[in-house]
């Protein structure tokens, strides 16, 4: 019975912890700030991030990574923080008084999209959990890396230096962050013994949370039709369901964090108001960024690129984006410090791979790597090419409708992450093309990893078509008066005059902030 109820309790606590963290970070009740469906999905991601941060911290401090005596009580406090009633202005425990910044109860523009996203997420989570719960860890990276570290955390009870530091026994990727092993180890502890089924359930919930959050955010960005099409494309990205959702590795987790982070930043930059309640979404961005960084090494690149792109286009909100990015990085500093202190160097960026001589010798591989990435790109078939063309056409329409910011942000994230991945493959090539061992090793690496690590740019490129098409149907600057457009371009609130004249003036479709800002402005002080 404990095998079943224990992990269920562990999962519930992660959700409650995430809910509490979101409430503390955003200053608002999550279901009111984001809507019920995104709040549930985001609570899972926030809970995973909080668990990862805390496990890493107690491990680095030399304490036990088992739930007692530190982890569970501290996380319990977070969970309680989300449940206690609050009397803070703007945050109401009861349902009788409306949160002035919340969606108006009489008009729920995201209801259909949220319901579709919730159903899709729930169905997928149940399916993946049902199919995968009986699969023992048996893939290379599962046993050589992720589950090995999981069992070290849960069975040895901490960052045992024989596994996490000592390089003599050949343990791999000791510099990899701990969020995913921390989550699996947490569920091991609740199950009372090593439990691959519990870890599979965690991956299944992550898949479900991804769909719930992505669907509801796409609805807010581009409408329910675009969200439905985007969800179909997301869930059908080749290999995502067929293999990766069944594996106990970090690829689905880092992808989910990074993909949702990009969508949240899209929400932030498409808000034309500049004075809308951005804090909750920026808090979410910080949490998702922290999760991406803490899940896998390339998460640092994914989050860094997303935040940098956000900084570039989020005029008027740059400080908020910067603070969110800095917070995401800061909570991962304990692991960075631990890695540095124990000389756990990255296999991608180290003094060997980054030496001028090595780079000069492997640079000729660039074309070969590019071709290999195209060959193994998730969804790189004729359908993928069709989607890319559709994304280009839709991007033109969206820009013409005034939505150049989301187009630029998506374009930057797709191209720069792809470039970084390409550079990673080139830099880690074994040797120059004249070395007979280098080619087969590189080809093997491309075959085994591209479909996993390129999920973020591949999925974003796939979803970009419906996203931009949906945006094109919702006027951005094109719907503003010339005066408002001028304010917009100069980084000021385009509705400064209008909002003082009339509450309903600020209602512009095409923004996730329509209802919130309108409602906020029309509410009595």
């Amino acid at each position: 019975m404990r095998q079943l109820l224990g992990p269920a309790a562990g999962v519930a606590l992660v959700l409650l912890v995430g809910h509490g963290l979101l409430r503390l970070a955003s200053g608002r009740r999550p279901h009111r700030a984001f809507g019920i469906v995104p709040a549930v999905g985001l609570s899972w991601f926030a809970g995973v991030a909080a668990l990862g941060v805390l496990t890493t911290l107690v491990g680095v401090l030399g304490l036990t990574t088992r739930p007692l005596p530190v982890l569970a009580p501290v996380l319990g406090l977070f969970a309680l923080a989300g449940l206690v009633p609050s009397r803070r202005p703007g945050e109401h425990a009861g349902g009788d008084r409306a949160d002035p910044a919340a969606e108006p109860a009489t008009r729920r523009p995201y209801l259909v999209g949220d319901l579709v996203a919730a159903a899709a997420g729930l169905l997928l989570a149940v399916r993946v959990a049902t199919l995968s719960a009986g699969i023992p860890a048996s893939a290379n990276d599962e046993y050589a890396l992720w589950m090995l570290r999981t069992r070290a955390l849960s069975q040895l009870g901490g960052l045992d230096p024989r596994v996490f530091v000592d390089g003599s026994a050949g343990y791999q990727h000791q510099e990899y962050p701990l969020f995913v092993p921390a989550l699996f180890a947490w569920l091991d502890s609740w199950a009372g013994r090593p439990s691959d089924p519990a870890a599979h359930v965690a991956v299944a919930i992550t898949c479900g949370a991804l769909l719930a959050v992505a669907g509801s955010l796409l609805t807010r960005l581009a409408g329910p039709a675009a969200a439905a099409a985007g969800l179909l494309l997301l869930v059908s990205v080749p290999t995502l369901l067929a293999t990766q959702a069944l594996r106990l590795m970090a690829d689905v987790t880092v992808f989910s964090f990074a993909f949702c982070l990009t969508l949240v930043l899209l929400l932030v930059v498409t808000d034309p108001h500049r004075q809308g309640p951005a804090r909750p979404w920026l808090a979410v961005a910080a949490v998702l960024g922290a999760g991406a960084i803490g899940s896998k090494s390339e998460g640092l690149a994914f989050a860094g690129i997303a935040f940098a792109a956000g900084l570039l286009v989020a005029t008027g909100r740059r400080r908020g984006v910067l603070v969110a990015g800095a917070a995401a990085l800061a909570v991962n500093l304990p692991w960075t410090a631990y890695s540095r202190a124990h000389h756990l160097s990255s296999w991608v960026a180290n003094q060997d791979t980054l030496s001028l001589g090595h780079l000069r010798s492997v640079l000729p591989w660039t074309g070969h790597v590019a071709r290999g990435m195209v060959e193994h790109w998730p969804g790189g078939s004729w359908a993928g090419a069709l989607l890319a063309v559709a994304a280009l056409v839709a991007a033109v329409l969206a820009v013409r409708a005034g939505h150049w910011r989301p187009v630029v942000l998506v374009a930057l994230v797709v191209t720069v992450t792809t470039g970084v991945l390409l550079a990673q493959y080139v830099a880690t090539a074994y040797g120059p093309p004249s070395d007979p061992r280098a080619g087969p090793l590189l080809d093997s690496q491309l075959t085994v990893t591209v479909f996993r690590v390129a999920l973020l740019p591949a999925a974003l490129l796939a979803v970009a078509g419906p996203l931009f098409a949906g945006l094109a149907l919702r006027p951005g600057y094109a719907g503003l008066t010339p005066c408002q457009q001028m304010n917009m371009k100069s980084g000021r609130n385009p509705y400064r005059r209008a909002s003082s004249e009339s509450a309903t003036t600020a209602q512009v479709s095409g923004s996730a902030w329509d209802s919130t800002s309108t409602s906020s402005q029309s509410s009595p002080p």
Partner: protein
Amino acid sequence: MRTDAAPRRPAPLVRGVAAVILVAAAAVGLARLPGELADQSRTAAAGRSLQQVGSIPVLSPGPRRTAFLAYVRGAVPPGESVRIVQPVTALSPLEGRRGGRPGICGYSVSRITYYWLVYALESRPSTCDPNARWTMYYGVRPGVLPAGSSAHRFADGYVLVRR
């Protein structure tokens, strides 16, 4: 009352092109999804059908060697280090260590097998220490055993030695 211009309705051409893109995107998703779900079911069924010996999945080493691993896991207390000895192979170009004793603790051996052994032993970390209390010979006949040590011979070349 609205005081500014209402949002402009997109031109019919824009609406038409956007609608085509949305429909095409949904069609691509719908066309791909059944294949992905079928592949998922097949992959999952194959994974679930893995035989297990003492909660250790039987992979390419086969059931007999897996039973040896289960025996070692039962004999060595959790938390104690195990020195793993395997047949020597050519040094892998992926080997990151700059030196080591061939055949010991994953150096110049089949790496894929080594990592599987390390994982299968679960909470018994691998060590290169020649004075380790436990040594597992996996496919290698032990030489002369140190004085005072005891060996459990599971099969030829599959021996657990305790000092």
